């Protein structure tokens, strides 16, 4: 294993800067904003250095750093990355500075605390993606709730209190059951190996030996926690509330990164730790994933609020990711990983664009808009690109992910039926319907509302600069996905090998 302290530096960057923010005076708004943006940009640079040290041809965890933390429980601060987590770390550090830029106008109240929360949140997310100790993972997973709770609760919309409390309790419910499972695993490992351990690499050996009946419960506890975060139908009800009430920056991070923690957890913990149960329950979970795809799309179709529409489209898109993961073929899991990134980029862009319009008019209902193509041509073009990327137009990023998932699901032996793929494919069509229909109602036609003419101004340079980097990656993944697929290929293979090694026991 290649050891390096770069990941620790990456993790420390937002932690240290978030504490430093507190030393600013609350009225130094401009300075605080630049500081927040600057430090998240610095974190991005550090993550690029980490990427440079990252070796794509190594399927094991790399850049690991290991420090004993709690001796009595044999818990260590242990971080490392493989291709999947490296990609998600890059997504996190890439999106955070952009969201900082997006708050220039939107966040006026208590900027210091906002910056603190955002940086703290970034640290939590990075910690989740790089932890190689289940206990450490759990700590980041939970600690990250607090800043997000504040972001929704302080800077959110009208029903922000309801949304933030719901978000907190839903997530907490799932994760506390996971905590019991983590402890159980640690105690069980003592009976197998002779010592408590929560180290992921050790647990990979212990997990599959858990007796079948109990393994199902363990798998269930982990799965529930991740499924709530994803969110998988029917556990998705917190998501529309949280998304709609959160400020734009919160929604972007929530959709862009937070939801990915759920799918990442499935891939990193559920599958390799409990392979037998994962295979056994894959068809049932996939049914829920497919229901989620179609349900999310249908509900999106009838939304009158743009932000809610994008929020429900997340339920649909994340359904694809879960389906891809549980189809357990190379193509589908590769597609799922790419789709995680895609969703982060395209839904992030959509939330940013909805937010830009909202900042000007303070309205999000589709009926309020209409015919804005003439008023704000640049905005309309950008919205078009974001929508097409989300719809999955060939040549843009969404297509690659969805295509790979559908292809992989079609020939999946774990699911054993092509119908999953067939039904899921209908989600792609529905996506085109609800997104393009929204676009048509908002952008085309005559200007329906004359308030718009003086309220709605076109995007300024700052806003264009936020979206351009996102669109660069939208095109890059769409045209030349190998850059990203290569990065994750070996890691995905490793995960699937871990699972398939045990598939014989189930299929007999």
């Amino acid at each position: 294993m290649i050891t390096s302290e770069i990941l620790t530096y990456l993790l420390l960057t937002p932690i240290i800067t978030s504490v430093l923010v507190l030393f600013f005076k609350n009225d130094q708004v401009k300075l605080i904003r630049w500081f927040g943006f600057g430090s998240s940009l610095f974190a991005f640079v550090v993550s690029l250095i980490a990427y440079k040290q990252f070796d794509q041809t190594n399927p094991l965890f790399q850049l690991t750093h290991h420090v004993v933390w709690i001796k009595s429980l044999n818990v260590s601060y242990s971080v490392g990355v493989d291709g999947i987590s490296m990609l998600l770390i890059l997504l996190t550090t890439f999106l955070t500075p952009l969201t900082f830029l997006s708050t220039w106008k939107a966040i006026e109240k208590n900027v210091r605390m906002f910056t603190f929360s955002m940086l703290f949140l970034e640290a939590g997310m990075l910690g989740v993606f790089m932890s190689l100790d289940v206990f450490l993972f759990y700590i980041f997973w939970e600690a990250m709730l607090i800043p997000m709770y504040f972001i929704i609760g302080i800077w959110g919309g009208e029903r922000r209190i309801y949304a933030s409390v719901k978000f907190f309790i839903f997530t907490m419910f799932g994760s506390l059951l996971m905590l019991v499972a983590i402890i159980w695993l640690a105690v069980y490992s003592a009976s197998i190996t002779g010592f408590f351990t929560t180290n992921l690499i050790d647990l990979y050996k212990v997990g599959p030996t858990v007796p079948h009946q109990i393994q199902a419960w363990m798998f269930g506890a982990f799965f529930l926690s991740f499924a709530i975060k994803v969110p998988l139908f029917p556990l998705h009800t917190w998501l529309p509330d949280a998304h709609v009430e959160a400020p734009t920056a919160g929604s972007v991070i929530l959709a862009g990164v937070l939801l990915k923690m759920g799918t990442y957890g499935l891939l990193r913990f559920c599958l390799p730790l409990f392979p037998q149960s994962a295979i056994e329950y894959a068809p049932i979970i996939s049914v829920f994933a497919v229901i989620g795809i179609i349900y999310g799309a249908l509900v999106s179709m009838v939304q009158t609020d743009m932000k809610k529409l994008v929020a429900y489209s997340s339920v649909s898109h994340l359904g694809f990711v879960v389906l891809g993961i549980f189809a357990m073929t190379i193509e589908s899991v590769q597609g799922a990983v790419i789709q995680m990134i895609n969703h982060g980029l395209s839904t992030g862009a959509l939330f940013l664009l909805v937010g830009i319009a909202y900042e000007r008019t303070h309205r999000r209902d589709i009926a309020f808009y209409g015919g804005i193509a003439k008023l704000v041509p640049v905005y309309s073009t950008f919205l078009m690109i974001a929508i097409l990327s989300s719809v999955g137009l060939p040549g843009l990023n969404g297509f690659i992910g969805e295509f790979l998932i559908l292809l992989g699901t079609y020939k999946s032996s774990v699911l054993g039926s092509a119908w999953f793929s067939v039904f899921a494919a209908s989600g792609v069509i529905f996506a085109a319907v609800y997104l393009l229909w929204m676009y048509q109602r908002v952008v085309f036609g005559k200007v329906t509302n004359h308030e718009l003419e003086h309220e709605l101004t076109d995007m300024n340079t700052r806003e264009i600069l936020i979206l351009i980097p996102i669109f660069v990656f939208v095109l890059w993944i769409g045209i030349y996905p190998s850059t990203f697929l290569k990065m994750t290929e070996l890691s995905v293979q490793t995960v699937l090998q871990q699972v398939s090694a045990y598939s014989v026991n189930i299929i007999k």
Partner: protein
Amino acid sequence: MPANNFEYYLLMPYIVIGVGIILSVILEISSKKSKEYLPWFSAMLFVGTAIYSILNVNQSFVLFSGMLEVGGKSAIFNTLFNLSAALIVISSIDYLKKYEANFGEYYILIQSSVLGMMVMASARDIFMVFMGLELMSICFYVLAGINRKKASANEASLKYFLLGAFATGFIVYGIALIYGTTGTTSIQNLVENFVGYSSNILFVLGMILFFIGFSFKIATVPFHMWVPDVYQGSATTVTGLMSTAGKAAAFSVFIIMLNAVVSYGAPHFFKSYFAVIAALSMVIGSIIAISQDNMKRMLAYSSISHAGYMAIGLAAGNKFSIAGIIFYLAAYAFMNIGAFSVISIVEGKDDSRIGIKSFAGLQSKSPFLAAMISLFMFALAGIPPLAGFFGKYYVFFGAIQADLTWLAIVGVLSSVISVYFYIRVVVYVYFKNSEEEFEIESSVGTYTAIIVSAALVLILGFFPDILLGIITSSIK
């Protein structure tokens, strides 16, 4: 065996506090300015004793023919009692003036109650336990009603006294039965022959009565009825002490008695007893706390549910869970003292401003207090990596090790419920706008107590091994 000099040397902390009490009484009588010196004198006394105790944690000796044991677990408990009392004393200085109860007796009573707790935690004889318990309890009865002009305080004091005396009755009756059937009051003897004695139904009955009496003191369901009224009516700082150090002292007795479970295999019956009160306390405490609008009452129910989490450790009864309880008690003490100190600052005269509504918009009045109360609430809710999380983690760990996974699941589910009322406070503090205008009076003493508590909550959260290492090495 006559006591020798060495034994008196080991008894130093007890003697120091005892002499401190006498000196304080003399000071109180002789000087009118004594009120200004007494808090600092007491704080120094407590801090000194705490430091002495923690430094001598490895010097474990049984003294006076098996009456007392110093060092080891007792030393850890002594440190905890003294630190808690020190924090409470310095946060009382300005509070008592506001509360119109700035009497010198207050500090003397706190010193005596701490001495009682120390005797309880070190006692290795049931009679010593009882003496310590009564010394502590009687001081608490008086402290609860320290302001005799306040109806609520009188009510609290009287209720506490009546129900406390009732519980004491159980304990004494239990002791009588235990002594009657075994002919011994030595805990060592009782514990070693626990299994043998258990064949006698009267002994088991005695133990049950004894345990029920202490279940009153640790505030577990179904013996919790006194808690909300007493915690609400007493002076806030007194509640802070009762709910932390007082609870810890009662738990220390359980832990000593539970040696039987750990080392000598007590009947399964006692495990079930603790499992049931643990489950009931966690669930009922958390559910009732949801509907409380009074901060002190809410924390009273939260205290009941926390007693439940700690009782999981008693039910599990292995070394890990015992260590977990002690860690939990320490974590709980600092979170709770911090929370009560913040409340004592916000609180106005005549029991006003202890409702959750008064905390609305606290963030705009005092960002510091807002951040602190949120920290304590998140810690009480058990969000990692704060101290409260590790307390829960350790007892759950012990429970799962002892095949009590169901109890751990009940525990996490009630944690989810409890999250609601803890973050409700944060909702008021940060998300709502202020409804009433009042000035926050800053107070050096109270702020110091809050900062120290917060620092300890963070330190125990980030480096739990510091304390857990000491605890595990003291449990042999």
